[in-house]
């Protein structure tokens, strides 16, 4: 086994940006991100009082607690993305063979992460965006490469935020999720023929970099409009 691992390449040959390049919905992605940030600050004061209270140690400032809620919402957005990705793959049932159990197992875990973070944030939680995975959830090879990229991204994102988290309780929670994401990443990388742990030390990715990577996929899109106030023009 050790010799097999040694022979594996250190990185995947795919970056998320390579999955789709037409740039059609970049503005939408930015709008979604912008709305999330804007609404967060407003909601965090009104709806997140319980969480703020839970997070804030006696000596901690309210500003520090707000910062933690922002980090939690950031984590929630990443968890939404992962959960939606595996959920759609499992539902469509187009990924099979040795990968068949992957969306079922990882999806169940990512949905649990979503549920836990949403419950903690309450009304301060950002809303789930819409996702268009553009056929990746129906393609064996693209699915696996995207899974590697998503899990690596999640690991790097959590890692970068760890030092910014003020609340010990939230840090404990984040670490408990981070290590699970790291296990997922190792599993996906091994399935993809990439070294599970390529370097002795991992680097985190700052928010700006993570958002840029997520935006480059064009997976986050505007929710399709399904309701209108126009007068009906049906046969009656």
């Amino acid at each position, binding site marked *: 086994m050790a010799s097999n691992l040694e022979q594996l390449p250190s990185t995947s040959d795919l970056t998320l940006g390579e999955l789709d390049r037409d740039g059609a919905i970049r503005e939408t992605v930015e709008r979604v991100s912008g709305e999330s940030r804007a609404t967060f600050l407003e909601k965090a004061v009104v709806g997140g009082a319980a969480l703020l209270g839970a997070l804030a140690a006696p000596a901690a400032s309210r500003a520090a607690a707000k910062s933690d809620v922002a980090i939690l919402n950031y984590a929630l957005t990443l968890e939404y993305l992962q959960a939606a990705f595996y959920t759609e793959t499992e539902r469509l049932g187009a990924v099979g063979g040795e990968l068949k159990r992957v969306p079922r197992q990882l999806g169940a875990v990512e949905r649990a992460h979503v549920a836990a973070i949403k419950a903690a944030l309450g009304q301060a939680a950002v809303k789930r965006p819409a996702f268009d995975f553009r056929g990746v959830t129906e*393609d064996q090879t693209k699915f696996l490469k995207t899974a590697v990229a998503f899990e690596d991204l999640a690991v790097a994102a959590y890692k970068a935020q760890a030092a910014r988290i003020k609340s010990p309780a939230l840090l404990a929670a984040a670490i408990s999720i981070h290590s699970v994401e790291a296990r997922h990443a190792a599993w996906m990388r091994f399935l993809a023929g990439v070294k599970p742990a390529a370097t002795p030390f991992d680097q985190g990715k700052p928010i700006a970099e993570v958002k840029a990577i997520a935006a480059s996929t064009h997976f986050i899109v505007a929710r399709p409009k399904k309701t209108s106030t126009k007068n009906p023009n049906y046969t009656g």
Partner: protein
Amino acid sequence: MAKGDGGQRRVGRALGLATAAIAAAAIAVLFSSRSPSLSSVEGAQALPASSSSALTVPLPVRLRRSAAVAYWASVRRAVTARTSPSHGARAVERLATTTPEGTANLVLALGRARDRAGRLWIHVRLPVLPNGRTGWVPRRALGVYGVVHTHLLIDLERPRATLLRDGRPIFSAPIGVGRPEWPTPKGEFYIRVRLTRYRSPFYGPLAFGTSARSSVLTDWPGGGFVGIHGTDQPDLLPGRVSHGCIRLRNQDILELGRLMPVGTPVTIR
């Protein structure tokens, strides 16, 4: 030479046994109650207790299993639906990205296939005449996928609407359907759009647009699409009273509106 080797082996064995005995004694000391422990390591008592997590972590969340699942997709780019999964196949209909009501144009996804070049195509139900037509569109022309667990059954004989969720009825109400000269079309359709807060008492407080179209009133404004809506003449229900639309009493359409998402398949029989 042989005797000397035997002596060396004996000495080696003795040394090995002595080393093993010393190691065992050391381990015993380390793990005895009187031995130093991690708690007595210099400074360890000063370490704070570990924090409990801020999250209540649930068990892994399994997907709800149901055979009665349908998928819709939004049309992301205007595209021609074709008779088979190939750019060379005969065109069936051109699909726009929006409906006449200004909402996203949705199609019901029925299956998938790849062409010879490996491109992914999706088999979709189309909102065109003749009713019941399907076609194939490239996956890249479609956008968001949605999933619904509901299915609306329209019984023209009784006449009655029944909504199923996961195969079980959760709503049922009497309806008005098309008169014999303007029959409500039979077949497999889906809900395309939901209209609310419009100014037309004739349609009641809420209307759903379906993919079904009247095969008689083809010159009706908007193309003769069949709606499912409320009414300002509830006394006429149930019965064959409409131009093809499916009418419900206002309290019933409001209840249906609470339960039935856009994208729900509709069977009219």
